[in-house]
C-alpha cells in the first residue's frame, strides 16, 4: 500500500505567512503603544521636581498627575499637591538636559584627546518644563518647576486650565510659539 505523504510544512514557513505575521504583530505593537500612551496621560506623567514644592527634595523623580483637586506629585517617599484654586499662572517651555548623569560626566572627562566633548554632542535630550506660580493660605507666592519628557507639559497645562487654573498665556499660543521655533 502506498504511503500518503502528509503535508508537514508549517504555515509559518511560507514567506507570505511570515510577512502577514509580522504585519499583525507590528499592528498589535502599535495598538499597545497607543494604549500605553493613553494610560500615561490618564494616570500621570513621569516628571522630575526641579524646585519649589514644599516637602519634596530638588531633582526628585515622581509622577505628576492632574486631579480635580489640583496637581499632585507622587515621588518615592515624598508627596505634594497644589490646589487648582491657588494657581496664579501656568507656563510651559522647552530646555535641553544632559543624559547619563554624573557617571557620563566623569566618563567624558576621562576620554583622551577631547573625545568627551564629541560625546557631549550626543548625550543631550530636549525636555519640557512646567512652571507654576501659586499662593499659599497666607498669600505668599510660591513657584514650582517640573521637567518631563517632550510634549507632556502642554497636555498637563491644558488639563489644569480646563479645571479652572489661571494661565496668562493660553495653551494654544504657547504651542504655536514652539512650532515657530
Amino acid at each position: 500500500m502506498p504511503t500518503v505523504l502528509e503535508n508537514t510544512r508549517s504555515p509559518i514557513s511560507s514567506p507570505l505567512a511570515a510577512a502577514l505575521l509580522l504585519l499583525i504583530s507590528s499592528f498589535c505593537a502599535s495598538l499597545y503603544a497607543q494604549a500605553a500612551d493613553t494610560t500615561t496621560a490618564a494616570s500621570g506623567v513621569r516628571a522630575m521636581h526641579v524646585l519649589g514644592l514644599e516637602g519634596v527634595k530638588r531633582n526628585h523623580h515622581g509622577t505628576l498627575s492632574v486631579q480635580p483637586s489640583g496637581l499632585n506629585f507622587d515621588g518615592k517617599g515624598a508627596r505634594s499637591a497644589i490646589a487648582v484654586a491657588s494657581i496664579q499662572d501656568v507656563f510651559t517651555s522647552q530646555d535641553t538636559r544632559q543624559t547619563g548623569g554624573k557617571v557620563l560626566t566623569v566618563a567624558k572627562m576621562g576620554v583622551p584627546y577631547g573625545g568627551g566633548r564629541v560625546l557631549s554632542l550626543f548625550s543631550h535630550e530636549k525636555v519640557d518644563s512646567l512652571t507654576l506660580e501659586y499662593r499659599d493660605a497666607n498669600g505668599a507666592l510660591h513657584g514650582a518647576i517640573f521637567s518631563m519628557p517632550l510634549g507632556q507639559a502642554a497636555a498637563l497645562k491644558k488639563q489644569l486650565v480646563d479645571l479652572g487654573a489661571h494661565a496668562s498665556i493660553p495653551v494654544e499660543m504657547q504651542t504655536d510659539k514652539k512650532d515657530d521655533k
Partner: protein
Amino acid sequence: MKQNRSPLPATLAGIAGPALLLCIVCLGIPRTFAAETAAWSIQVEPVASDEGQLPPDFSMAVYEDLLAQLAKTGQFQQVYRSGDHQADSVPNLLILHMTLLNFERGNQTERAVTTVKGATKVQVHLKVSARDGNTLVEKDVQGTVRLFGENLKATYALAKHIADTLRDASLPPPTAAKAAGQ
C-alpha cells in the same frame, strides 16, 4: 635631684593660649554680627522684568533659590515670600527688589562641546530697602553658568551672589536705620 622637665609643655601652653584667644575672638565676631543683623527680617519680591524678557521658569527659579539661600545664611530673623500677610505686622522688615538688567540664554550642549561658548547669564539690579523707603543696599549682581550644569544653574549662582552681597553689606541695626531715615 636633677629636674629634667622638657620645655615642650611650656611651649605648648605658649601656643595654646593665644590660639584659644584667637578662636574666641573669631567665634565671637560672627555671633555679634548675626545678633545685630538677625533683628531684621526680609521679604523677597520676584524679579521685575518687561514681558518676555525673562522666561517664567528662570524668574521663579531666581525667586525660590534666593529664598533658600537667604534662609541658609541665618542672617535674617525671618525670610518672607512676596505677598505673605504675616510680614505685614513685622516691625523691622527689609524688602528686596530685583530688576532684570540682562538675560542671555545659553546652550548646555554648546558649553559642553566648546567650553567657551553657550554661557547662560542673568544680571539683576538689587535694591534692599526698609519699609519707610530708605535704601540700605543697591548693587548690580550677576549669575552665570559657564561650563558644567543646566541653564537654571545660573539662577542658583545669582541667588548665592545676592546672599553674599547682603552678608558683606553689614546692614545697620534697625534703630540706627530708622534714625537715619527720619
